[in-house]
């Protein structure tokens, strides 16, 4: 039987927007939320009061400039104003962006630092927070209270984004799941139905509202499910864990919810259980992090005397990208534990109404009993990650969301066994290992040989511990582990529980050199490590039990410190430096005083490079053994060698060759300890922008392989290849149609060169985004120099229709009339015929198919990011043409005097 499950048919929510739902609740008049704080009297908020508060927050937010489609950051503790600001934002048609309210209140600046990355990503119009929190320098309009005034009409629409739930909040690359009103209400309704809730139910929760479990599982589920909830602040619970269960007891609560660590804390530090009465409890949901059998058994054992029944415990599985709930193990939907790799894996039941799931491995649905990645489909999925088409494309396969979690199906029920993406979850926050590893790497002057971050269950805390393993080439200085831990805490706000320092060669790796995190997680290490002299432990380097699974360390004599670093000291290898862009680039590198070596192929024209007197090294992509040597001690690799014109009519051959070569380069770079890999692609990889935007940016990507043209297919395949790279930083540069010195044969430059020689210019028409090749070179230099650069950046200046460009340039070369453009089909047929003729006669085609594909599929490109994030200013086209003319005259491509040719301007090199 295949591992596929489908819930019952989706149930349409009774309201179509969050404000509708709030209005419904207000009309009913039943009690809703009760907020408890310390010894203060509780504050209650019923539907009508919440609706009125939301309208007043809408007034205050509108006064701060919030409009439909904007984002509003909501930084509020569990309390009436969270509800007011959250619904107030959606009232205006804006999206609420809940931010994590700190457990430790009273440090506004630190909080601002903690949420900085999310704010940078979300770019909200305003921040809704408390007066105390407003004292930090937020740098945007801050609204601290609702206000009276004329209430605008609620404008939210069912399919508009209601809120954006950011995951991995404190890392450098937060991802914001965009959730529509429809998805949110469908999810909340499906959960309410599954739980069988009604007005007789009373919930107790200390989960923060900014968290998906608190927001959807508590706030929205109780909104549509018509039950009331007693709400604590997380800090109140953490400070006095006994408050949770005593509130359950006191309020005769029927429902409660928490992550596994919360239940554990309540057990461990919940104080005396005598006097409690938990017999009213009918469901206790446990989710949002791995669920441990020991916790469930502990609860059953310790709380049985006070009326707790083990069957109330309902393990659940969900994720923010699916609004929240996916599978619930309520009542008969639950099942027995699964014995898996020596562990007891708790069953999380079956899908909620409308949800479907399947387990896949290598694209195939696995058989029942086998482990596979959990993939989910249904009406509650996010519409995508906010302004992050790369992450969105990676998350979806058609309609299916790849959760990154691993599971095993048994008896038609799901068991969550691990995480495919090796996500680390600590205190309810998600971290990508790559982000942690990057921070650790940055803590070093010299690149460590290898860094791996992973988490594993920690029996004592019932939670997970974060382990960071660093492979060093020399004996570490005193206190290094402590420094690493401080750095991780400072940058990411998470504790590295175990920091382990090892000598090079000890980490288990795949044949291609990738560190095997999952093997480390399971406690395996490299077989080669059999030495017996342990590295002396330094203060606070790890906890006792954590380390015995790793092999002892070998202390070797210190290695010379090669001091690689960013900036001008970086040692750079350029592949493809002999090409058009390559020559301008190595010229610019040399000018910037950067030590660069150029790789050359066995047989290639390197005359241009020789003229620049740069060191050359043999680096033949077809011969991986040459790469290891060429990459030795390099900090940065710039890969410009991705041009395969020979293959225009053999897409699969071209893709196979290109990906094989690039992958062997990536693998060699990983072996050599390269820190940054700059891959030069093309604006051909900018996909047409969505409706409503004229120009594409680096963020617009083809979400599947383009089916036209070999050029696009090859570039797309290479992007997949470099995007999958996690061993070092990868930066993708997308230059537009490069014009300027050094080229007259390829790309758009070929049309201009032909025009300059007054030759016939057979051409198609389409968008070309022109850019001076020297500006692209400067942009690439910035990518080498700067410690922090965007991971994807387009270089382009002016946007033209090709026909208009040629017509506008023609007078410069004394050409009166430019041949009209061919239609797309004509151009393709012409280029194909030209290439066939050229192949037969061993001559050059007057128009290449590749160039036709580039032009007819061209997208006008907006390269604002290169200006704002790399500080580029592009020179106007006239200067570019002047430089081209000067160069063309010098090499004799043009003969003086081509009548109105402008006097060559002094060539300004970067």
């Amino acid at each position, binding site marked *: 039987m295949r591992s596929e499950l489908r819930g019952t048919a989706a149930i349409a929510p009774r309201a179509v927007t969050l404000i509708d739902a709030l209005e419904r609740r207000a009309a009913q008049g039943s009690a809703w939320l009760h907020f408890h704080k310390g010894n203060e009297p509780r504050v209650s908020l019923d539907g009508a009061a919440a609706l009125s508060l939301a309208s007043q927050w809408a007034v205050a937010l509108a006064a701060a400039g919030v409009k439909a489609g904007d984002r509003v950051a909501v930084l509020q503790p569990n309390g009436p104003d969270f509800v007011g600001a959250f619904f107030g934002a959606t009232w205006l048609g804006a999206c609420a962006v809940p931010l994590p309210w700190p457990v430790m209140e009273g440090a506004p600046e630190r909080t601002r630092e903690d949420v900085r990355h999310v704010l940078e990503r979300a770019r909200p119009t305003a921040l809704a927070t408390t007066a105390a929190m407003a004292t930090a320098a937020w740098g945007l309009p801050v609204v601290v209270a609702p206000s009276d005034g004329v209430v605008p009409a609620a404008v939210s629409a069912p399919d508009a984004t209601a809120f954006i739930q950011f995951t991995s909040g404190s890392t450098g690359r937060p991802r914001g799941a965009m959730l529509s009103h429809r998805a949110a209400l469908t999810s909340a309704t499906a959960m309410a139905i599954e739980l069988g809730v009604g007005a007789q139910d009373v919930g107790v929760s200390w989960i923060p509202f900014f968290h998906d479990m608190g927001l959807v599982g508590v706030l929205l589920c109780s909104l549509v499910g018509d039950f009331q909830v007693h709400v604590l602040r997380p*800090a109140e619970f953490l400070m006095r864990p006994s408050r949770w269960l005593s509130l359950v007891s006191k309020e005769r609560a029927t429902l409660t919810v928490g992550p596994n660590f919360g239940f554990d804390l309540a057990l461990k530090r919940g104080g005396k259980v005598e006097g409690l009465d938990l017999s009213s409890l009918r469901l206790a949901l446990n989710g949002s992090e791995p669920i441990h059998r020991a916790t469930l058994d502990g609860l059953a054992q310790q709380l049985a005397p006070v009326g707790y029944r083990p069957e109330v415990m309902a393990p659940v599985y969900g994720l923010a990208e699916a609004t929240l709930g996916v599978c619930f193990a309520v009542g008969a939907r639950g099942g027995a534990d699964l014995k898996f790799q020596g562990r007891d894996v708790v069953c999380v039941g079956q899908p909620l109404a409308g949800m479907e799931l399947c387990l896949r491995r290598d694209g195939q649905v696995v058989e029942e009993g086998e482990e596979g990645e959990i993939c989910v489909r249904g009406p509650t999925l996010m519409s995508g990650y906010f302004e992050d088409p790369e992450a969105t494309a990676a998350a979806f396969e058609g309609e299916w969301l790849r959760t990154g979690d691993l599971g095993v199906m048994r008896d038609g029920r799901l068991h969550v066994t691990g995480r495919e993406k090796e996500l680390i979850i600590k205190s309810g926050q998600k971290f990508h290992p790559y982000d942690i590893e990057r921070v650790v790497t940055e803590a070093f002057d010299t690149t460590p040989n290898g860094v791996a971050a992973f988490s594993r269950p920690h029996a004592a805390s019932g939670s997970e511990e974060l382990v960071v393993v660093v492979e060093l080439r020399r004996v570490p200085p005193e206190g290094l582990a402590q420094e690493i831990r401080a750095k991780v805490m400072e940058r990411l706000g998470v504790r590295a529980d175990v920091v382990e320092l090892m000598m090079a060669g000890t980490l288990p790796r795949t044949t291609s050199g990738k560190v095997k995190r999952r093997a480390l997680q399971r406690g395996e290490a490299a077989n080669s490590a059999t030495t017996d002299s342990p590295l002396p432990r330094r203060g606070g380097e790890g906890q006792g039990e954590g380390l015995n699974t790793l092999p002892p360390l070998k202390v070797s004599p210190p290695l010379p410190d090669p001091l690689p670093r960013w900036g001008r000291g970086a040692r750079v290898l350029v592949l493809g430096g002999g090409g058009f862009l390559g020559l301008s680039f190595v010229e610019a590198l040399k000018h910037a005083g950067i030590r660069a070596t150029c790789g050359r192929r066995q047989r290639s024209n390197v005359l241009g490079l020789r003229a620049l007197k740069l060191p050359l090294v043999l680096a033949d992509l077809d011969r991986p053994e040459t790469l290891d040597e060429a990459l030795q001690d390099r900090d940065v690799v710039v890969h410009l060698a991705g041009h395969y014109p020979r293959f225009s009519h053999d897409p699969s051959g071209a893709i196979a060759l290109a990906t094989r070569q690039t992958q062997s380069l990536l693998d060699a770079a990983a072996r050599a300890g390269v820190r940054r890999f700059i891959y030069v692609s093309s604006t051909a990889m900018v996909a047409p922008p969505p409706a409503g935007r004229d120009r594409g940016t680096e963020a617009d990507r083809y979400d599947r392989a383009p089916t036209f043209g070999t050029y696009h297919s090859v570039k797309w395949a290479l992007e997949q290849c470099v995007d999958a790279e996690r061993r070092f930083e990868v930066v993708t540069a997308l230059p537009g149609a490069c014009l300027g010195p050094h080229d007259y044969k390829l790309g758009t430059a070929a049309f201009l060169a032909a025009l300059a020689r007054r030759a016939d210019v057979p051409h198609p028409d389409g968008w070309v985004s022109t850019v001076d090749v020297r500006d692209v070179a400067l942009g690439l230099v910035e990518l080498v120099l700067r410690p922090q650069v965007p991971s994807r950046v387009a270089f382009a200046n002016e946007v033209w229709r090709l026909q208009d460009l040629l017509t506008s340039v023609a007078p410069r070369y004394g050409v009166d009339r430019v041949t009209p453009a061919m239609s797309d089909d004509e151009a393709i047929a012409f280029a194909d015929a030209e290439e066939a003729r050229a192949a037969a006669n061993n001559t050059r085609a007057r128009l290449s198919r590749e160039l036709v594909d580039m032009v007819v599929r061209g997208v006008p490109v907006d390269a604002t990011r290169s200006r704002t994030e790399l500080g580029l200013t592009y020179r106007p086209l006239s200067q570019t043409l002047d430089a081209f003319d000067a160069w063309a005259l010098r090499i004799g491509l043009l003969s003086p005097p081509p009548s109105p040719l402008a006097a060559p301007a002094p060539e300004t090199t970067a």
Partner: protein
Amino acid sequence: MNAATLEQRIITLIAQVSSGVKPQDIKPHHRLREDLGMDSVCSMELLSMLAEELDLDVPVEEAARVTTVEATVQMAQQYMSQKSN
């Protein structure tokens, strides 16, 4: 309880909640977050255990003010003297 005993007690609790740091490595000037790697949940647990053990009523807001081992000791002393008055 005198200051030295209190400090020792607090250090023991820190070692307990932030498993991985040994009591002998914890110094009064250490910062809970940066030096001892205690995240907010961890710090809260420390204060919670302290409040419980010494039977003090420490408001939650107090937690954020305490950033070092020393400050934790001082805060505990302050609440203890409040209690005895």
